[in-house]
């Protein structure tokens, strides 16, 4: 078990380093930073001064190692536009994104797991078909569109929820629903197929031959096995959610990391962009690791691997 964790952790560190390199290189590819900082009215001399001041005149690899070195100890430098350190900016915004992600994932799990189980137990009935239809529609609906519809119906017409901003818990309801919908179709279908497979297995026949109650057969013997792929995908989905929250935070004007990322991309605020990408990547890696550990706990066959 410990060996498994150590190995996954090592892989995670490698992935993080790769992401850092890519984030660094891609931001450099997108244009001359010095020109955009100096502004449209700057002269060539101004641009040169800016280039020197921000250290952009140094060779690329020097800039890269200087940045990685400081990033390792949590120093992501200063934002070019916000008068604040990048670390501070992210620290302030992170709780909002995490709250949103957790609300979204909890909602997604609470809806998709019972729905998946129900569809599996009523396989090929109208219930199952309705669930499948629901997941297909859910898959097809873009989240920004769903966000707008919710805003119109719940926010404007019924007036029960605030449309945008970060003030109270009510502000997280609509974004949470929209975010949940990005994961519900996949999780529902996975739960359904996992349960169908488990219920048809030999060990469920054994459980029935043992005379166990239906509830115990479904929720203990079948769900435990069906949950294994669901956990893996749920972790990946939460990762997507944190990334996908860029769209949702922007639509709902939630000032989270995603919104920060969007603002800084628009402004070529490279230190912030790089840090946001890295933070999201680290979360993603952490979640995958967590999923691996959870799966090893669920499936004893994985513990030796």
């Amino acid at each position, binding site marked *: 078990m410990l060996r498994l964790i150590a190995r996954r952790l090592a892989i995670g560190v490698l992935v993080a380093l790769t992401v850092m390199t890519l984030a660094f290189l891609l931001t450099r590819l997108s244009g001359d930073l010095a020109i955009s900082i100096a502004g449209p009215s700057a002269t060539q001399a101004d641009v040169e001064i800016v280039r020197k001041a921000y250290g952009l005149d140094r060779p690329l690899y020097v800039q890269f190692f200087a940045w990685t070195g400081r990033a390792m100890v949590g120093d992501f430098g200063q934002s070019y536009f916000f008068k604040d350190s990048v670390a501070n900016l992210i620290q302030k915004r992170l709780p909002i994104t995490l709250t949103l992600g957790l609300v979204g994932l909890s909602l997604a799990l609470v809806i998709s797991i019972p729905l998946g189980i129900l569809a599996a137990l009523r396989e090929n009935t109208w219930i199952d078909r309705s669930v499948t239809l629901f997941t297909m529609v859910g898959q097809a609906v873009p989240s920004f569109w769903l966000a707008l519809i919710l805003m119109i119906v719940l926010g404007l017409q019924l007036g029960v929820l605030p449309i945008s901003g970060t003030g109270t818990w009510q502000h997280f309801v609509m974004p949470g629903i929209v975010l949940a919908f990005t994961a519900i179709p996949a999780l529902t279908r996975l739960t359904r197929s996992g349960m169908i497979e488990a219920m048809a297995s*030999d060990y469920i026949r054994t459980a029935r*031959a043992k005379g166990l109650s239906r509830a115990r057969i479904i929720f203990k013997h079948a769900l435990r096995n069906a949950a294994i792929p669901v956990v893996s995908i749920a972790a990946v989905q939460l990762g997507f959610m944190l990334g996908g929250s860029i769209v949702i935070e922007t639509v709902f004007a939630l000032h989270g990391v995603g919104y920060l990322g969007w603002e800084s991309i628009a402004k070529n605020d490279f230190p912030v962009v790089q840090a946001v990408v890295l933070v999201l990547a680290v979360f993603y890696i952490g979640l995958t690791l967590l999923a691996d550990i959870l799966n090893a706990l669920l499936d004893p066959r994985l513990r030796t691997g």
Partner: protein
Amino acid sequence: MSALLEVEELQVTFGGRTAAVRGASFRVEKGETHCLVGESGCGKSVTALAVMSLLARGGHRSAKRMSFAGTDLTSLSDREMARLRGNRMAMIFQEPMTSLNPAFTIGSQMAEVLTRHKGGSRAAALDRAAELMGRVGITAPGMRLGQFPHQLSGGLRQRVMIAMALMCDPELLIADEPTTALDVTVQAQILRLLANLKREFGLSILLITHDLGIVARVADHVSVMYAGEVVERAPTAALFRAPQHPYTRGLLSCVPVPGRVQRDKPLGSIPGVVPAIGAGFAGCAFRSRCAHADETCARAIPRREAGDAHDYLCRLEPDWAELQPA
């Protein structure tokens, strides 16, 4: 005297169309080993599953009579049936590798049978599990209780399945080809174990097999199944001495017997496969493969007596084989 398990004219259909079992009748006496024997696809396993009320979705059973220790099984609700299963009638399967849940320890899977049916503490159930594991010849049961199925060999898993079936001290054990997936040496051990347990626990065993060697070794009575029907029923010795149904004779001719096999003479075989029987089928299902079939075989077939507790389903008179050259 009433039998422990009595099945009369059991019918099983899937999706209302395919008839998997067509009026099978047999009885399992207290303390005996009764074998259901036949080729693949002749309805042996489905019969067993129907008795346990474990048919897959879409399967439907009906019977003129199906009673277990005086209880009418056809009238029981799902819940009442679940109370019998694992408790008074237990079942083990052909696939020891996949019949245990991979996510739970052996101990937990065994203990829940006892706590479900008899109540009591988990600790007491684990003690019983360890004791039974010893009885079925598993060494170091204390350690095995904490292990997972994937850590055990096929033979061990089948032993665990047997021990688990015995948790509540059942009267009937249904064993569906319990040794088919195992090595020959392990097969012999498991068969010996079943024979011993039958004696020690006063079990009745309904053993499903396609292997006539196994039948000869362990069965008291045999029912030969073909295409969802029991075509011949007999005490084991009588069946091997004087088989009556052409199908039974065909099956026996397929088995090599030391001393009787001649180098240049091929072993017997039955041409063709078990046919799928649709609705409205009448007459003998074996007639398409039978060397003795004539036009009368398409009509209703009588059940003929051939001796004590020995009957068969065929137009031919008893001991027809002696009257005509094979």
